[in-house]
């Protein structure tokens, strides 16, 4: 049995989202996330870009983020991890599944932490 549900050849980086310059985010602060957690800047970019990604129909795909840059979108976990390690080697990079449930869940965590969601 194949270990990947979607063939690698189907992974893609749409031209419209490759290396899209993104305005610098505000100071990363994720309510409910431990301050010593790495990649909070990247996660802030994910949360900020999530409405657009969902509106463009990317739910369920995987986004690769480095610093302030949304590097690309991929269809499988293997494709996005390969892309991340190929491009950034052992430097930190962030992989996020585009999940429509995240805004509600992040808000719930923020509420429990006694803060407004980012």
């Amino acid at each position, binding site marked *: *049995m*194949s*270990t990947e*549900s979607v063939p690698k050849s189907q992974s893609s980086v749409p031209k419209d989202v490759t290396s899209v310059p993104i305005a610098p985010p505000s100071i990363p602060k*994720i309510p*409910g*996330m*431990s301050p010593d*957690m*790495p*990649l909070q800047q990247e*996660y802030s970019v994910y949360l900020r870009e999530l409405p657009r990604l969902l509106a463009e129909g990317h739910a369920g795909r995987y986004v690769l983020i480095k610093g302030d840059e949304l590097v690309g979108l991929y269809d499988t*976990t*293997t494709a996005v*991890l*390969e892309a*991340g*390690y*190929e491009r950034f*080697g*052992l430097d*930190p*990079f*962030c*992989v*996020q*599944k585009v*999940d429509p*449930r*995240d805004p509600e*869940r*992040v808000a*719930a*965590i923020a509420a*429990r932490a006694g803060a407004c969601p980012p």
Partner: protein
Amino acid sequence: MPTLKGAVDRDGALLNIEFGVSASAIQNLRASHRPIPQPVSAIAVVDSGAEVTCLDTSLVQKLGLSVVGFSTANVPAIGGVHFSAMHAVSLTIRHPSGHAGGNLVIPDLPVLEVPLGVLGYHSLIGRDVLAKCHFVYDGPGSWFEFSY
């Protein structure tokens, strides 16, 4: 189709799993002449309620895994919805026959770091892995079957 059968434990359907550094990370470790951590074995509970496979913090530390993302995970046993760090691993389920061809190998699998050790096991096998398998749970007979 390779099949594993077992008795249902009080914790549920338990499997012996081998976790290692992801295949993509190994290529980079080799290229930079850095040591590659040996895979670690873990007792895993098959959990159809878990969307993503989870790994105990102690195993994350043994493998020296770096964070590659986050997910919002709802784990009632440890306090409900919270942020969990995501790591990339390789997962191997060894077939009892000893034939490597009978193993289930997933070379690049994102897993969530969750402090499971307090619960008595070190991994939850979620629906991301079950999506590649057939899983039969016979409650009255107290046995399960896992094939892939």
